[in-house]
């Protein structure tokens, strides 16, 4: 019972100090606030799409096709007369869902692999990291292309394809601090008290490396959204008529000579989200650990 209470208090304290650390990191680097604000704005648009979007994103109106930006259609209409602004707002959902699914998966699996490799060391470490090196040898877009072609372009499959490319970097990020934390006295003490390996890893190593991993998560979310858009642009995105930013640019690219707005506005949407996440992650990374600056 006492053990549970102590453990609860320890966890609460760890979480509180992590929260305080994150807050001070935000304040050290003001650009993180701008990044966060922009990202939250996009999340609100995505969540509130049914209420915020001015038109139905898949409602076709041939009479109204390829109209330039106007008061009724701020970003113009596409070749089927669909409202581009509404499609961008709905498209944010696809980008965010695939990005978040992929990065959550990669973060959990990659970190677990990295912590296990770092904790056990020796042959386990060599084998795991060699496998990660093999995966890293595949350029992410190429691996994504092949996996999506193999599995078919659904939201889950796209998330799997992107997660596969992001697992090795998370494993690497988690492994290095695990090796240094492993040698601290409190871990030897835990071992002497007979704590299991799983308890030491989950209770004592993971909280120590979590801030770094979460910051990398925000940077990799930016990459995931970029890769998803790139796959959709190549033609391997979620199938039409669902609105995806990369897919909209692909369709707009065919009419680029006379209707630039088709490709231009979704391009700006991708730029804003990816830039916001990069600003958020970059600022936090500098603040949390100056040594990590510009690594990876």
């Amino acid at each position, binding site marked *: 019972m006492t053990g549970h209470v102590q453990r609860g208090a320890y966890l609460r304290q760890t979480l509180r100090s992590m929260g305080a650390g994150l807050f001070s990191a935000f304040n050290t680097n003001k650009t993180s606030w701008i990044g966060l604000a922009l990202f939250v704005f996009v999340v609100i648009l995505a969540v509130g799409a049914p209420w915020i979007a001015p038109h139905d994103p898949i409602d076709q109106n041939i009479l109204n096709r390829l109209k330039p930006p106007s008061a009724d259609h701020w970003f113009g209409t596409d070749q089927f007369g669909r409202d581009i602004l509404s499609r961008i707002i709905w498209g944010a959902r696809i980008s965010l869902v695939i990005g978040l699914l992929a990065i959550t998966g990669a973060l959990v699996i990659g970190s677990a692999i990295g912590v296990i490799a770092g904790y056990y060391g020796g042959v386990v470490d060599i084998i795991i990291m*060699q496998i990660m090196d093999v995966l890293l040898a595949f*350029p*992410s877009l190429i691996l994504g*292309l092949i*996996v999506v072609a193999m599995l078919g372009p659904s939201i889950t499959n796209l998330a799997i394809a992107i997660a596969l490319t992001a697992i090795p970097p998370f494993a690497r990020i988690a492994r290095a601090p695990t090796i240094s934390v492993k040698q601290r006295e409190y871990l030897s003490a835990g071992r002497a008290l007979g704590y299991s390996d799983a308890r030491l890893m989950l209770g004592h190593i993971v909280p120590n490396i979590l801030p770094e991993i979460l910051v990398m998560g925000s940077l990799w979310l930016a990459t995931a959204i970029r890769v998803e858009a790139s796959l959709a642009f190549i033609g391997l995105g979620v199938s039409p008529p669902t609105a995806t930013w990369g897919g909209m640019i692909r369709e707009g690219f065919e009419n680029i000579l006379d209707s630039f707005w088709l490709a*231009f506005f979704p*391009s700006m949407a*991708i730029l804003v989200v990816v*830039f916001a996440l990069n600003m958020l992650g970059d600022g936090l990374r500098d603040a949390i650990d100056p040594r990590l600056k510009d690594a990876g």
Partner: protein
Amino acid sequence: MSAFFIKRLGFSVITLFGVLTIVFFIVRVLPGDPALVILGDQASQVSIEALRERLGLNEPLFVQYLQFLGGVVVGDWGVSMVSGRPVVEEILKVLPATVELTVVSLILGAVIGIPLGVWSAVRRNELPDYIVRIASLLGLSLPAFVSAILLLLMFSITLRWFPVMSSGQGDTLLERARDLALPAINLGLIMAAYITRVARSAMLEVLNQDYVRTAHAKGLVFRVIVWRHCLRNALIPVVTVVGLYLGILIGNSVLTEIVFNRPGLGKLIVGALNQRDYTMLQGMMVIYTLIVVLVNLFTDLVYGLIDPRIQYS
């Protein structure tokens, strides 16, 4: 050094072996019977069976695997299911165009990125630093196809300075340069964004070293300290960036080639995907991963050569 070289080479061989194994199995689990894909839906069962026999698809998987590994080593990567020509031949035909694009972009990226990174570090927390940092962050936030489309809109469609489509096979040097310009600028600017950031942080680290303070103390001109003493040391991490970001460069070159309709590996792989040309896809993955493993090996070795302090363990 030679022990390190042998060890590093050994790891590369293991990685390559792992990569080839994954490639082999990925292609085998792709949906659809390759023989049916080549001959089409109307083909008779007899001809499909005959083709399966000829392609070696009736052999046990392990035998196919060994044949595949042997083939890769001797340069027999199979025959394209669409064109019927050897995969190696098809790849070698377009490889120079992609190499030309990526090498020129890398040079452009270094020429822009290194001085910008140095300038940004020297003027740390001043206006130039902020501008360079935001610009470089913007550069690495742009998906390559988005920046390519923006460049196309501006310089080819509005200003009409460059051709909308780049054939990559101009007759004169000037035509080739015009064809290459926009795609190379697109890839080069993105690479410059990455290189600027690494050069800046490497430079910041070097500027704090004791020998820099000594150089100051003995009255050396600041410019000489920066360009002669600091830059040399700051360049070391920049070299490794080439290896680290090669995957990104390859992905971006695929997207750039598609937007500018330029021949190269990018267009070849997308075509192979659309036509379900499995042998071609297999060959493409082999060539891409081969490039990544070899360049990483090369940068590791160069890293050791330019910095004798590095201890190999």
